[in-house]
């Protein structure tokens, strides 16, 4: 009897200490949960690294990096439910489904938790704001700038896109055409479509080089097309003559950078993205800023984010990858 009482007494004390510890920790630290589509994906691991950087910089932040094992909405809801139960201060989520997370996230907001989405957004009623890695205008400008930077005397460029009906690519090409005036001497000679298939993109790139012998650059605003185009340039022995650029993944493009088929390319930087999301969540959770159309919210070393009418904002220009930093990023995503 004495033994059991001692046991129970000890356990109760431990529970009290635990509860007390958690309560006092709650008072001064801000607990921010970074919820990703699934754990074990390089892109999100890098984002978590950036988020930790932000947490260290802020000092009083406890970062919870979490997510489901599969990229399913129901898995993310389980994770969000357990975060609501823990009464975290903020949830920053890259969503597996625009609509499915809304009820769970609304419940989180009802209980005073700051909710933002980043990378892959949640419908407006399920979050306070959304952080886009970049904007269509910035991407459109970036892809032509990447080509023009290596053509000081002007030249011929061609575009290898995904499919003719791909909304993203068409918007970016439109935005690119809008700023062509800023790049005198650069002439877009053709736009072809590889349908995001490796072999078709490869043949289209070959065709471009045969049709336009003086071609200086191929811009492929798609991660499939850019790799195929780089291989076509290598196989045609035109490394140094034709520069392949656009949007691609460092892990897939490392070879093309090494061979010289591509001088540089761009994509968002996941480290900056995780960093900014954490900074924004902190600013909102501590009431230093309010998420409303037109609001300007600080995000540390990344400057400030301006929200549009849908309470969305674009973080920055796509990040440029070249021989100087490809080794650092090729293992990440």
């Amino acid at each position, binding site marked *: 009897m004495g033994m059991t009482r001692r046991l129970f007494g000890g*356990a109760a004390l*431990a*529970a009290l200490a*635990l*509860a007390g510890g*958690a*309560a006092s920790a709650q008072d001064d630290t801000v607990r921010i949960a970074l919820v990703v589509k699934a*754990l*074990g994906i390089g892109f999100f691991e890098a984002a978590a690294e950036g988020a930790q950087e932000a947490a260290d910089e802020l000092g009083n932040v406890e970062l*919870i990096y*979490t*997510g*489901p*094992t*599969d*990229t*399913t*909405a*129901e*898995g993310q*809801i*389980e*994770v969000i*439910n*357990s975060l*609501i*139960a*823990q*009464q975290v201060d903020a949830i920053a989520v890259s969503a*597996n*489904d*625009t*609509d*499915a997370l*809304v*009820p769970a996230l609304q419940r989180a907001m009802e209980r005073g938790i700051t909710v933002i989405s980043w990378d892959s957004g949640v419908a407006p009623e399920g979050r306070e704001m959304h952080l886009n890695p970049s904007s269509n205008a910035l991407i459109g400008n970036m892809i032509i700038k990447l080509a023009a930077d290596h053509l000081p005397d002007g030249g011929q460029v061609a575009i290898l896109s995904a499919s003719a009906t791909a909304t993203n690519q068409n918007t970016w090409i439109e935005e690119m055409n809008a700023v062509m005036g800023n790049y005198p001497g650069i002439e877009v000679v053709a736009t072809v479509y590889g349908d995001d298939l490796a072999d078709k993109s490869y043949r289209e790139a070959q065709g471009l080089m045969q049709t336009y012998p003086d071609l200086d650059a191929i811009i492929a605003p798609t991660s499939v097309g850019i790799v195929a185009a780089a291989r076509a340039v290598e196989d045609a022995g035109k490394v140094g003559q034709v520069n392949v650029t656009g949007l691609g993944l460092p892990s897939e493009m490392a070879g093309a950078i090494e061979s010289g088929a591509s001088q540089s390319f761009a994509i968002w930087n996941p480290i900056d993205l995780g960093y900014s999301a954490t900074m924004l969540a902190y600013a909102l959770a501590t009431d230093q800023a309010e998420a409303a159309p037109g609001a300007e919210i600080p995000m540390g070393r990344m400057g400030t984010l301006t929200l549009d009418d849908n309470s969305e904002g674009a973080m920055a220009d796509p990040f440029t990858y070249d021989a100087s930093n490809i080794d650092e990023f090729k293992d990440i995503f």
Partner: protein
Amino acid sequence: MTDATLVNEQRRHIPDRLEGPAARLAKRWEVLLLAVAVAIFVANSFASPYFLNAWNLSDATFNFTEKAMIAFAMALLIIAGEIDLSVASILALASTAMGAAAQLDVGVPVLVLIGLGTGLMCGAFNGLLVTGFGLPSIVVTIGTMSLFRGISYIVLGDQAYGGYPSGFSWFGRGYAFWVISIELVLFAALALIYYVVLHRTNFGRAVYAIGNNPTGALFSGIRVARVKFVLFLLTGLMSGVAAVCLTSRLGSTRPSIATGWELEVVTMVVLGGVNILGGSGSIPGVVIAAFVMGLVTFGLGLLNVPGIVMSIFVGLLLIGVIALPRLWGMWRRR
């Protein structure tokens, strides 16, 4: 009974069982599992200050209610010596069918009927291949696992169906009273129905008989193929029920919906004490196993244990709970 036989029996008493009722009860799988559940519950309450909260616990039930609904039918199927690995894919296809129907502005009852009907049809397809052509169920359902989800992927690609009528959310997001959700009530009702079917009807006896000895069952007049076909219909139907609940809860359908659930359902059934080789098992065991898995995943979730580590934990739990009684027996015999 005459006095003479009574005296006779008393003199040469041979007990039916070697142990008393208490000892037998203590060794029952369900009791062992219940002890594990209580232990996990207590451990969770000490590990996290947020665990003992009615609403949090209510949220946690959603982690297992839908899977458990499928697990009841799966338990019967496994007891009868068959298995259905296509349940999660049936769920995805049923959800896709409901999503397609929702785009045509049909009412809630029609949506539910479409979900259940799709489940039944998939179950009938599995059942026909297994009982009609005598194919092994594990092979058939591995095939239909890819087939059913494949159709969802062809229909949806990287798109999603949304726009379900507002009344449809009642199934997955509604509450019967206070913290008791509609899903939890449905879970309890289905548990009761499956308990009666398996433990109190001739059909249930036939299921056990088939699992223990299909040939013997056939020769004793049980229509083995028909019972098995009905069991495949039931797993299909329950996948349809789970599809209604999950789709209603999410309010949207993607082809990746419920990925990997077939293994979690089988884990739940085996953890519940159902012999994977057929012939034995009980519904109360599966009910407790559902709670154990729900409590474990929710408790670990509160401690922010990553999902990958959680699966390791569930795997160890499964091996542990199954191996412990055997080890105990080996140790006793020495």
